[in-house]
Each structure stands twice: as structure tokens, then as C-alpha cells.
């Protein structure tokens, strides 16, 4: 189950098969995702785009194995994960997926170094803390926080907190990093800085990056863009031309379905 012992480079690292998600509120059923099929290849940088309510966060949750689909499946490196028992899934996720969230989601009672180290401590068999420590320090240094090892999240600015989150996401050298509006809470200067760091780390670590955003400029950096609307894929586009998408992407968020 080691992340790097995946089959061949040709097989997709993520495969989404007939993925559906419905929510029942009272007597009414709301379909959030209406049957999605796509794959993501190893090393690819994919942006999932859509307005608020388009289902992109739900899709991200399912891609990350944080939630169960109503139907269909998600495969990581060939392993179907959507119906794994909780603990098994948690372990697999810890080694396969690195997360970057819009609201950072650092543990407030741990220092930045401890936050970065946490995935290692949660997932390492060996418990060799020294190796982990070196890696955590190196990652924090690479995001420019070498002077902030022992600071608690509240003592850091938003941009700094997100850089700690970036370092944490890459801690275990996961084959996949999922980023949910990673710059959504930051001003443009900090946002750009974080994005550059993310792309740099992604390149350096050779990770597959899936970015969820409604921001076309952010998505423009991706090799492929998947556009969602009302739970369906309405467009896929590769390369650097995003003019068409810009026209399609609704600027004003639609009401919740």
C-alpha cells in the first residue's frame, strides 16, 4: 500500500466512476453530483472550477475520501476507496493525499513545526521522530518560515498560516495534493505568494495537484480545467487558453440548489 509502488505511469492516479451524491432534507432529495466520470493522470495539475453550489466542494470531499458517495466510486492508484472502512481509509488517505484548505485548518494548540510534523506522527510506523523533524524543518524553511518554527497559529498571519498548511500537505510526500481555494482567504499579494510556493513544491515533489477554485486566474495555471455546473461536468479544457471558460464561469454565485 505504499504510495510510490503504484502500477505504471500510464494508469490514472485518480479515477472517478459514475460518481453521484444526493442529499435528503426532509422529503426532498437534492442531487449535488449527477454522475461524474473522469480520470487524472500522475503528475497532472487539474483545476476543478464552478460557482458556489455547483458541487465542486462535494466532489473534492469525495475525491479525498472524506465523504461517501450515493453511487459510483473513486479510485486512487487503482484502489477503490469510497467504501473502505473508516480506519483503513484514514490510513490510506494519510499516505496518499495532502490537503490545503481555504481556512488553513491548523490545530490551534500545536506550534507550526508540530502542525507540520503531525501527519508524520499520525502515519509513521517507525516513529523515528528525528527524520520527520528534519523533513518538517526543511519544508517550513522552503516556505520561508524558518524563523517561525515555535509559533502557534494565532501568532501567524493568514498567509503564514497557509504556508504552514502547505508544508504540512507535502510532509509525507503524498502522490496527490488536494487544494480547496488555497488563496481564498488571502489578499492578492499573499495569495500569489502561496500559489507560487504551491506550484514550486508541486514541481519539486512531482505531485499530482488537484485545485478546487472559482477563480479563473488561479485555474489558468492548471494543465487541465474541469468546469462543473449543477453537479455535472459542462466543459473540460487543456492548455493555457482559458478564454472560453472565462465566458462560461458565472461571476455571481448562484443560489444553493
Amino acid at each position, binding site marked *: 500500500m505504499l504510495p510510490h509502488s503504484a502500477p505504471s505511469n500510464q494508469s490514472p492516479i485518480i479515477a472517478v466512476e459514475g460518481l453521484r451524491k444526493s442529499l435528503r432534507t426532509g422529503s426532498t432529495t437534492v442531487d449535488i453530483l449527477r454522475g461524474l466520470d473522469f480520470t487524472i493522470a500522475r503528475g497532472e495539475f487539474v483545476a476543478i472550477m464552478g460557482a458556489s453550489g455547483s458541487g465542486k466542494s462535494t466532489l473534492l470531499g469525495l475525491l479525498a475520501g472524506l465523504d461517501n458517495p450515493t453511487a459510483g466510486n473513486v479510485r486512487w492508484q487503482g484502489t477503490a476507496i469510497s467504501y473502505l472502512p473508516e480506519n483503513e481509509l484514514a490510513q490510506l488517505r494519510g499516505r496518499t493525499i495532502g490537503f490545503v484548505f481555504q*481556512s488553513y485548518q491548523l490545530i490551534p494548540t500545536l506550534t507550526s513545526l508540530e502542525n507540520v510534523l503531525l501527519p508524520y506522527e499520525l502515519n509513521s510506523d517507525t516513529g523515528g521522530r528525528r527524520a520527520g523533524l528534519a523533513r518538517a524543518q526543511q519544508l517550513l524553511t522552503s516556505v520561508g518560515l524558518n524563523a517561525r518554527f515555535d509559533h502557534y497559529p494565532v501568532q501567524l498571519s493568514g498567509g503564514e498560516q497557509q504556508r504552514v498548511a502547505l508544508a504540512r500537505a507535502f510532509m509525507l510526500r503524498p502522490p496527490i495534493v488536494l487544494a480547496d481555494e488555497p488563496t481564498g482567504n488571502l489578499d492578492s499579494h499573499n495569495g500569489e505568494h502561496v500559489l507560487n510556493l504551491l506550484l514550486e513544491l508541486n514541481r519539486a515533489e512531482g505531485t499530482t495537484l488537484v485545485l478546487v477554485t472559482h477563480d479563473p486566474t488561479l485555474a489558468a495555471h492548471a494543465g487541465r480545467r474541469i468546469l462543473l455546473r449543477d453537479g455535472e461536468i459542462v466543459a473540460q479544457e487543456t492548455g493555457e487558453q482559458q478564454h472560453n471558460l472565462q465566458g462560461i464561469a458565472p461571476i455571481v454565485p448562484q443560489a444553493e440548489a
Partner: protein
Amino acid sequence: MPSLSYSTAARIATRELRSSPGKFTFVLLSVAIGVAALTGVRGFSASFRSMLLLRARSIMAADIAARMSEAPTPSQQSALAKLPGLDETTVTEMLSMASSSTSLDPLLVALKAVDPAKYPFYGNVVLQPAIPLQQALTDSTVAVGDDLLLRLHLKLGDKIKLGNSTFRIAAVVTDEPDRLTGTFAAGPRILISQQALAATGLLAPGSRATRRLLFKLETTKAEPASDARVADLRNQLETILPASTISDYREANPSITRALDGATGLLSLMSLVALVLGAVGVAMAMRAHLQQRLDTIAIMKSLGAGSSQIIRIYLLQTLLLGLGGALLGLALGMGVQLTLPLFLARLLHLTPGFRLDANAALLGLGAGLLTTLLFTLPPLLDIRNVRPILILRRAVENEDSAFFTRAARHLRGSGLQLLATALILIGLAALAATVSDSRQVGLTFAIGLLIALLVLLGAAALTLWLLRLFLNTTRRQLPSTLRHGLANLYRPGNPSAALLAALGLGVMQIAAVSMVQRSIVGEMQATTAAKLPNLFLIDIASDEVAGVRALLATQPTVQGTPEIAPVVSARLTAINSIPTAELHLKHMPRRALNSLELTWPPTPSTPPPGDRVVSGQWWTAQQSAAAAQHPLVAIEHAQATRLNLRVGDHITFEAEDQAIPATVAALYEADSQHAFSRADFILPAPALRGLPVTWYGGLHCDPTATGQLRRVLYQHYPTITVIDVAATVETVRQVLLQITYVIQFLAAFSTFAGIVILASAIAGTRYRRIREVVVLKTLGATRPRIAAIFSIEFAVLGLIAALIGLLFANALARILLLRVFHFDYHLEWTWNLAALVITAALTVAAGWLASHRVLGQKPLEVLREE
């Protein structure tokens, strides 16, 4: 399987503890107060119980006494000698003639021979001058009652002649511990040593002497032997000495026994209540805490942590909190125990020997840890249901929280939760059994608690549902503040039903303890206030009765109306037509059947003062009037047991060669503190008409003036023997008063502890309010408005909880008082109403106190954290 190392788990756990000390103070305090109340009440009650039991035993001078007319046979002696850990001494009581060596005028005296080296096992013989008993009772000296000096015109140091010997009077006997339970005989008393009595030659074979064997169980500590050991010994003695009448110290004074039983039961109840309240506090606080930690848990899960790893962190945290709280509580409890004797010594003149018991400390520590662990188990297990998706959902504004709460609720019904519930019940039962020293009590308590909790939850849910119905129909008409306050009860994630049940449970327990305490204390105060007889008059002739009454009426030191009971001597000849000669008697010498004492009550249709019917029915005035033809009899319960008599049996007495066949109408218990306790058989007056009667009087005299009254009585009626038990009665009164003080103090202590715990449980809800306050403030709500909204919410919570709690408290107190403690229960409207208002007020106050800082919250601080 990769796992979080304990050091990392501990680091995260302690880091959280340090990051928000305020929140954990509630948990710590809940545990600490629960443990403090438990160790305090327990240690306290243990010390008091042993002290009070010692005093109760001093009324009999022994743990157990066996009264018999013959000396034990050699085989009985050797069987007694084989009983382990037992000390024994004999008291011989007989009537004899004494004369002054100068006057030779003989006088009937009551001799009491004791072994001064051993007698009494409990209590003290008070002598004048104050010399040791061994010095007063030698081969050549005796101690006498002051009436003997009066009658024979003697003084200390003079000589008296008993049988063949002459003795010097070494002291005057002022008080003996077993005066109330010894033989009441006519004539002044003389205390003599067994050896000296033997030398007088009075104890010839066949002489009518009563022997009382006094027994004391040997104990190592200051504490007297347990009731179980006493009961065990009693059984053995009944086998070895079948012809003797055996009584243990509990029978020596029924009102003390009753008060002690009530107090002991109440104290166990209070310990249990302290335990559960502490646990409720912990459960509420830990639930609130874990709810606050949902985000952290979700993040850790998304980073690959399994539920077990996260549970490990919070389990460690729980253990640390439980241990800390228990240690704090232990210190508090011991502090109370150490400082209280000082206060009590000054106020109540009580100096119980307090000692810090390692067992009690360990129990407190264990109870604190165990309850914390047990009650945190369900919220800990809920960690498994926290979905990592929460971190994304929060970002998308909880778009389907209803679904998730529903799913979580569904999952919560899983087997592990049931297992946890079972564990809690077993743990509680074990703790309750340890605390109350009874497995039965533990089991009953745990099951009772479960039922109470379920019913309370149901009642709380029902009330909330009804309120919501009301709210929905009247919505538009209500002022907006009130509407908002009421609507807050249904705030998503607000465990109103659980909080109501917890509050209701607390109110129920505190109120029930209060009610039981009030009833017991009320009865004891009535007993201690009553002017019980402390002087008894023996052998009043029929023609003296009117004169004695008239004389007593003129004495200012006599309080209340004296009781004068007629006594008719009779023989028992047959039971259910079987002649007594053919009866198999147990624990009753056959000879005793020839000298029974019958009496009639002062009123035709009610029992005499101090007697209480326990079986059958007392006769009516009509039945009493017809008693000459159809005599009825009421029999003292213990006597009936010895004779194996039940209501409806027929027995035949014979007095003055006249047969009186009577039907047993009732069995009664006598308090042995009234003149009528003298007789064991009560018949309606017409049944005994015409028979020779002697009279027996009991009166209450100012305890400081008994000597003077005795002299007046002697001047007018020199043949009447006066027995002064004022000192003993005063002891009884003091013990009863002390019991009431202790009960009241401990009840106040547990009530206070309970209120603090409940207040902290309410305060634990504050963390859910912060967001709400912030939103309200951003929308322009003023501080007073928010405060009003919260006050309404708290007041309604408090009122409903109090209403439900008091309802169940009354039911519980009724069952406990009537069935378990055998005291009276009365519904007290004003008290209940006051409790209702106070609970609501306290709830609002606690809520306010907790929300005070919440109200001051700056919106930005919270919004920035989002």
C-alpha cells in the same frame, strides 16, 4: 498499524488543557466537588456514626445483653468461652433487705452486683465523690443511691449490713449507664462487687436473682463493632442460651436507633447523590469540550488519523482531568474534615475523633477517576462519528448539517454506545455498592438512576415538544425577545433535552435529600422537644394514686402531666388452648410466664403514650366497653415474638384465680421511655376490673431538680421507690440533637456542592453561545437585549427542570421515607414552590455568570477565527 505515540498524544492533550484553562476549570471543579462531597460526607458520617454508636451502646453498657434467671451451666460457660473476640461480664440484680449497723431497721433494697474491673463496657458510672468504681466496690465497701442514705439516716463512710456481711458506704451512685435497661426494682439501689455479694451468702440456690450477661465485641480501632457482627453474635448467643432474653444495643433506645438508621441511610444517599452530581457535571463539561474540538478532530482525521488515535488523545485528557479533579476534591474533602471539628466543638460541644482514612481517600480518588472516565465514554465514542468532511462543510456554510446530525444520531445507536451505557451502569452500581456498603443498594441505585434518567429525558423531550407547539401557534403574538429566548431552546446542537434531564436529575436528588432530611430532623426534633419521663415511681398503692397526682401537680419542677400506669400481675396459662406447661418456649424462662404484668390504657380506644401498633388494629371504644365479655389484648412485639403469638391468637391469663381468655388484637412497639412500657400486655380496662393493682408512674422533671423532687416524694410517700433516669434521658436527647445537627449540616453541604456542579453544567453551554452573540451583535443587538434573550432561555430551562425534578423528588422522597427509612412523608407546597423559584433564579444566575464574558465578546475576534 501506525499509531500515535503516547508522548505525542499526551503532548496534544496537555497542550489543549493549557490552551483553555477556563473551560477545564469546570470539569475539574465538577469532579473535585463531587469527590469532596463524597469523601467529606463519608469521612464525616463514619466518624460521627462511630461516636454516636458508642453513645448508643453506653445506654446499655454493652453491645449485647442476655437476661436470665439462672446462672449459665458449665457447658454453656464453656461454649461462651469458645466464642472468639468476646469480652463478657455478669451483672446480678436481686432484692434484699439491708439495715444500718446502728439502727437494725430493715429496708428492702435493689442490689446490683458487678465486676468493677470490667463493668461497664461502655459509658461511665458516676459516683459522688468521683472515685474509680474499683475503689468504691471492694470486698468491704459498696456504693449506694442517695435515697438509701435518706431512709436509713446514714452518711458516706457509715456501715450497712447485707446478709452476713457489713460494708462501708464508699460513694453515692449518681448515674449508671444501663439504668434505663436494667431491672427497675422497688427500693433504693446498692452497687456491690460480685465477690462481695458472694460473701454475703444472699445468693443461695433458688434465690430470685436476675443475671444479665453483658458482652462486648473486641475491636482494634476506636470504632465499635459493626451491626453485622453484633447480629451474628446475637444468633450464636440465642443458640447457646436458649432460656435467656437477648437484646442488643439497638434495642436499648429505639428513638436513637431510629435516628441513627435514618441518619445513616440519609448519609449514604447523600454520598451517592454527590457522586452522581459530580458525574453529571463531568459529562456535561466533557461533551461541551469535545463539541468545541470537532474541527480539530476533523482535521486530524483528514490527515490520516484513525478514530482510535484521536480517542487516545482525549482519553488521556480525560484521565488527567479526572485525576486532577479527584486530587483537588480529596484535598477539599479532607480540608473540610480537618477544619470542621473545630467549628463543631465550639458550636455543638462535639469532639468526634476525626481521622484521615486511607480507604476513604482511595475510594474518593477511584470514584472521581471512574465517574469521569465512565461519563466521558459516550462523548469519546462519538469521536468515531465525526466525519472529516466537516472541515469542508464549514467552509461551505453547513449546507446540509441536518443530514449529518441525523446520520450521527443514527450511528450513535450502535452497539459500542450500548456497551458504554452498560459499563456506566455497572460502574455506578459498583461505586454505589462501595459507598453504601451494600450490593443491593448499589444495584437498586443504578437501575433507579437509569429509570429516572430515561423518564426525565422523556419528560424533558415531551415538555420541549409541548413548548414548541405553543411557540408555533403563538409565534406572532409573543414579544420578540421572549420568542427568541424560547426559540433558543431549539437551537441546533443545543442539547436542551439532555441539559434539562441533567438539571432535573440534580434538582430531583438535591430536593429528595432535602425532603428526607427535613422529615427525619422534624421527627427527631419533636422527640427531643417532648418531655419524656425521666423519673419513674415504683409500687404506688391504689389509695396513694390520687394523692401522688395532687402532690406532683403542685411541684413547679414537674413538666407536663405525669403518666401513672396500672399494673396487674398475672400468669399465662394457655396459648391457643395449649397449656403453657406443654409449650416449647424459646428465649423465655418458663418461670417468667408466672409473673407477667398487664395494664390498661388511659384512654379507651388509643394505645398508651410511647406505644405504636405494628400489626393488627387497636380496639375501638365499643370493643373496649364489651371487653369484660370478650377481652382483647395487645402484646409488645418482642414479647409476642418470643411467645410465637400472632394477631388473632387466643391466650389465657390468670389473675387472682380468675381466668381471662383474650384474643390478640394488635402487636405494638414500645419506646421504653414511658411508664406504660413497664407492661408487655395491654387489655381494655373493663377486662381487668376488680383485680388488685399496683401503679407505676413516669414524669418529666427539670433534670437539674430531680434530687429535690425525690426528697419531697420521700417525705410524703416513703414507700414509693423513685428511679432517676434524668441523666440517661438527657444523654438520649443530646445524641438525638447532635444527629439532627450533623444531618442538617451535611445536607446543606451536599446541596451547596450540587448547586455548584449544576451551575457549572449550565455554564458549560457558554461556548455554544459565543457565535450567536457575535452574529446578534453584528446585526445590531444591544448587550441588554442579548442578556434578556439568554435570561428567558435560562429561566425557562430552570423552571422546566425544577418542575420535573421536584415532581420526581417528591415521588422519590415518598418512597424512601415510607418504605426505606420508615418516616412520615408530607407534601409541603410552600417548600416546593420556594424550591421552584430558587432553582429558576439560580439557573438564570449561573447562566448570567457564564455568559458574562460571552456578552463582552468582540465580533471580530470570533469572525476572524472562522
